[in-house]
């Protein structure tokens, strides 16, 4: 059993997910984690599929999606990652917004990385002149959250954007 990463990107229309997953089911694939969104009108999806089929055969099975040239499909084998062990990390929401300019994401995420933060979810939107970034960041217990916040504020200031880093509490019921 291998794990395959399937990406489908292109012009959005109704039915792409149904057609993709029907083809994968015909090949005996079992969907594991997946995510899909619309980026500037483009359909964008990544599926992790376990299957007893080689990546090339899955790509051939999904060729029906690409015949009209509006969708691009890739399939590649990826290793099984070990289960996430308890980390003791704290989750933070990083929010950045301001006038669009090149380099916001790279500058801000470089600060996060240098502070030991691991981004687990990210979305950015450009609407008119306004650029917005939202990211979830896991900070290890040993990290200096206040120091990271201060460094982010300095970088945001130099970019002319607003930044906030706030803990995300999750409560066990």
């Amino acid at each position, binding site marked *: 059993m291998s794990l395959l990463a399937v990406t489908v990107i292109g012009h959005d229309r109704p039915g792409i997910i149904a057609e993709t997953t029907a083809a994968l089911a015909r090949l005996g694939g079992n969907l594991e984690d997946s995510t899909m969104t619309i980026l500037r009108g483009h359909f964008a999806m990544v599926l992790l599929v376990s299957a007893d089929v080689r990546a090339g055969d899955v790509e051939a099975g999904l060729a029906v999606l690409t015949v009209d040239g509006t969708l691009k499909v890739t399939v590649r084998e990826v290793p099984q990652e070990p289960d996430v062990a308890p980390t003791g990390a704290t989750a933070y929401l990083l929010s950045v917004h301001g006038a669009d300019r090149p380099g916001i994401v790279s500058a801000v995420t470089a600060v996060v990385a240098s502070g030991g933060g691991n981004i*687990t979810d990210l979305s950015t939107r450009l609407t008119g002149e306004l650029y917005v970034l939202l990211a979830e960041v896991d900070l290890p217990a040993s990290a200096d959250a206040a120091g990271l916040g201060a460094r982010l504020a300095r970088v945001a200031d130099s970019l002319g954007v607003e930044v906030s880093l706030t803990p995300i509490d999750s*409560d*066990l019921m």
Partner: protein
Amino acid sequence: MTLLPPLPHGRVRPVVRAPAAVLTRRAEDVDPRDPEVVQLAADLLATQRVSPGCVGLAAPQIGVGWRLFSLDVTGHPKTRSCHGPVVLANPSVVAASRKERGREGCMSVPELTGDVRRATQVLVAGVVPVTGAALTVETDAFEARAFQHEIDHLDGLLFLDRVAGAHGLHARSVYL
């Protein structure tokens, strides 16, 4: 004044994890004076107390489809009103208002958390095990959220049924 009736010694029971039919069926009303119901109330509280970070436990979570839960938000940083340890049978939410979004996890879905909008002001009605006395509880903030989460369990609902949006589900990275 405690809302807790005198209960027998509680036994720690294994917690059922989704998927399991008992977690997705409406639980049945109980006789609050039935000794089995009283024992189950004690077992819920005992099981909740040995589970780090757990503030409530509903009977379906230990495999029993009865309308009964335990709850105790004492000491939680988000708690405002606090009624201490509570066990309640045949409960329902009578009134709810002022919804806010919060991220919650569940012993029965241990590897995920979800963003769920819940009322921050609730009035809950039910009956007290042992005595059978009718009880209404008006509360807010974190205790209100916990009451709604537990009563949802008795209606066969998990927080997964209430997640706010397709990207409102998260891997639980923080373990207690």
